[in-house]
């Protein structure tokens, strides 16, 4: 046979063995510098973003120089402090939150019922599919006139539209989460003799928790929006109004700074629930379990 061109034959080099001593040259781990550790705190980064936005607002308001259209950040904060001090704002928040929590809790219960039905039978699945595609795109506010007709000018109508705004997105998310549970995990659960509700609660719900949590968040946001909008439009007629009614009333009286204070309150509650409830829940569950980064 012909020999390979000499350039393509690798050289044969001597072998060697090292005797390895225990490794002590450099520490195996070292701590990050303090500013990097500080920057890893989410609340510091977010606080900085909030401060920047407030600064931007203040500058824009001063440049605009029209209190009726855009009160400054400081004026808004003053109105907010006044409202909180007099207790008026807190009372409005209390009214809004009680209605909100009622509707939210009922919506969550109903959606778990609906999705449990959907995972256990094909008809249940079809029912969920049909109902969500029918009602999910329907704005809750569009149902409010009908709800007022059915349940009267009170809490009942508000709870009804809240349920509507929570039920469908949460059911869709939960069901998607259930469907995404790995087949191996399902088989493992059935292998140990889990069936029915025990199977749903011990395998499907924890395995689908990331999707369920995001559904709960979406549901919460939808419910909040729906409530404030409903109070803005119809709050006047329901006797004692909540936050939305506070905003609407003050706009009518051209207290723009109070309108902004009411909006800030809505935002603050949103942030509070997000960080205190949902992020804490995530930290205790899906993050600790390594299901979410």
């Amino acid at each position, binding site marked *: 046979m012909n020999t390979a061109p000499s350039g393509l034959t690798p050289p044969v080099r001597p072998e060697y063995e090292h005797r390895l001593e225990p490794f002590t040259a450099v520490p195996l781990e070292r701590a990050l510098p303090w500013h990097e550790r500080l920057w890893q705190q989410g609340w510091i980064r977010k606080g900085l973003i909030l401060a920047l936005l407030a600064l931007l607002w203040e500058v824009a308001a001063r440049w605009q120089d029209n209190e009726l259209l855009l009160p400054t950040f400081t004026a808004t904060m003053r109105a907010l402090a006044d409202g909180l001090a007099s207790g008026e704002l807190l009372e409005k928040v209390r009214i809004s939150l009680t209605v909100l929590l009622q509707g939210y809790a009922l919506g969550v219960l109903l959606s778990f019922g609906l999705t449990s039905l959907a995972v256990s039978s094909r008809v249940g699945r079809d029912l969920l599919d049909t109902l969500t595609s029918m009602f999910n795109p329907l704005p809750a506010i569009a149902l409010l006139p009908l709800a007022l007709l059915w349940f009267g000018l009170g809490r009942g109508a508000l709870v009804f539209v809240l349920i509507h705004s929570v039920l469908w997105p949460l059911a869709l998310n939960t069901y998607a989460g259930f469907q995404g549970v790995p087949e191996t995990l399902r*088989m493992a659960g059935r*292998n140990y003799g889990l069936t029915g509700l025990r199977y749903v609660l011990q395998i499907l719900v*924890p395995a689908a928790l990331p999707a369920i949590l995001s559904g709960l968040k979406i549901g919460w946001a939808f419910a909040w929006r729906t409530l404030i909008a409903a109070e803005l439009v119809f709050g006047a007629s329901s006797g004692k109004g909540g936050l939305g009614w506070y905003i609407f009333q003050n706009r009518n009286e051209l207290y723009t700074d109070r309108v902004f204070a009411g909006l800030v309150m809505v935002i603050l509650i949103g942030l509070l629930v997000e960080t205190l409830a949902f992020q804490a829940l995530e930290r205790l569950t899906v993050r600790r*379990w*390594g299901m979410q980064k």
Partner: protein
Amino acid sequence: MATLALRNRPLGAPLQGPGAVVGARDGAAQAGGAALLQVDAVSLEYHTPGRVVRATHRVGFDVFASERFVLLGPSGCGKSTLLKAVAGFIDPVEGEIRLDGQRVRGPGPDRIVVFQEFDQLPPWKTVRENVMFPLLASRTLGRKEASERALHYLAKVGLAPFADVHPHQLSGGMKQRVAIARALAMQPRVLLMDEPFAALDALTRRKMQEELLALWDEVRFTLLFVTHSIEEALVVGSRIALLSPHPGRMRAEINSHAFGLHSLGSDDFQATAQRIHGLLFESDGATE
């Protein structure tokens, strides 16, 4: 069954060697007594959109107590489907599967499966809770006893220091060890393993095979093991069933109790591996 096995044997197949090719029933008769697990002329089918595919056709074999029985075959021979049928996830369309003489109906904690996938461990449970899970779910033991037994078996697989971490903090090999500890803690009649080491790197796989054999030496569980590696089958198994693909049918049963990790590379080992290779691949046309 014996006649079927004989009919399926190609004319030129050699009959000599460390373990002669015998029909499933002949093997059962030689060992004496009733088999623990009987797979009797089982045909399995699965559905794809628009068609029904036959995965195995009248497959039969017996597994005796403390045997390490391996199902070996190329992909498409239905070995994993067969294991799922033994676990009770799939019902046979023909034939039946009996455990202790009782027909298998649905999944149950007397046949614990160790899957190939790492996500068989619920990520929301710590390592110890994972091992306790089947014990509690099947209401075999109370919480306290389950916890003690979990620690005992975790120590056996060398994971006692990791009892309180969550699975995502473990390596792939450690996760499979947890799954094995979990299965053993249940003390099932049969331990079912579906290519449990296939997703591991080669070095870890070698170590896991060694540990599994050491555990078997200690506990003497009954094992039904699915693999597509001839070497792994010879090392892990005491008896190997060879399946032909599309659909899966019994090709041969071969004894491999003499082989272990120590015999890797020995002449006997190589010869048997060659023979299995021949049975699986070289006479596809002659089986009909």
